[in-house]
């Protein structure tokens, strides 16, 4: 295999491992990767892109809901529930964990707790988004250099 491809392959493996090791993604992400094949070559990127779109819409809705003079905690909980579901489907572990805490605050009707959770949730979401976008860039570089999957 070409030296550049080997280097990129190493970079890809190391970066992916770091995401698992640091807890950004879990085993569920591997399930997504297993479903990617010749007939579905961009499956992971496509599903994760949908997750990004839906998550940002939900974060926006959460901000609006928590900014109301009277907070509808049921509505807030519904949005968090959805975000928990989608984050668990792609293996975004840290986002999922914050959602669990957030739901507890909703159950307790704890407005301050919910606001704090939203801040943490936004932060964790944008962190994992950044990490996954970097992963996809490295994958694209690897394939552009002549690499292929499975490695």
């Amino acid at each position, binding site marked *: 295999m070409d030296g550049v491809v080997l280097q990129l392959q190493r970079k890809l493996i190391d970066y992916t491992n770091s995401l698992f090791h640091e807890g950004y993604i879990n085993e569920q992400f591997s399930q997504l990767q297993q479903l990617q094949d010749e007939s579905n070559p961009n*499956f992971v990127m496509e*599903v994760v892109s*949908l997750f990004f779109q*839906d998550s940002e819409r939900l974060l926006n809705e959460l901000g609006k809901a928590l900014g109301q003079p009277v907070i509808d905690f049921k509505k807030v909980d519904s949005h968090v*529930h959805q975000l928990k*579901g989608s984050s668990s*489907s792609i293996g975004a572990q840290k986002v999922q964990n914050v959602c669990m805490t957030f739901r507890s605050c909703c159950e307790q009707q704890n407005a301050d707790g919910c606001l704090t959770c939203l801040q943490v949730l936004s932060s964790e979401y944008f962190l994992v988004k950044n990490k996954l976008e970097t992963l996809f860039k490295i994958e694209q570089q690897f394939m552009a250099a002549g690499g292929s999957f499975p490695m």
Partner: protein
Amino acid sequence: MFALVVDDDRTTRIFHQVLISSEGIDVHVAEDGHQAVRMITEGNKYDLILMDRDMPTMNGLTATKMLREMGVTSTIVGITSWDRKFEIEDFLAAGADKCLAKPLTIEKLRSIFAEVANVPGQTSGTKN
């Protein structure tokens, strides 16, 4: 075998759809319980229905109850976000055959398929 994935979350719906397709099984999707009931009323038959619990318009518990009242004998697997006992009990009381916490994995799905294949009278359905 024909399957129906019922989930309001787009990411989960597509993931489960592709997961099932990867096992060579035809799969339809519905965004909520109301759409699922309508698809079955229109004549679609499914061996397996993966039913999410919390959905707008019609949730999974109501949809499951309705399908059983209609005489639908498909294997219905309730998909919950949590592994909480009351969520499982609610789904089983509504008529689901079993419950699993999301996200599903290839292994969980295969165990369901094996059970569906062994259910007497559960033959390949037809779809419109």
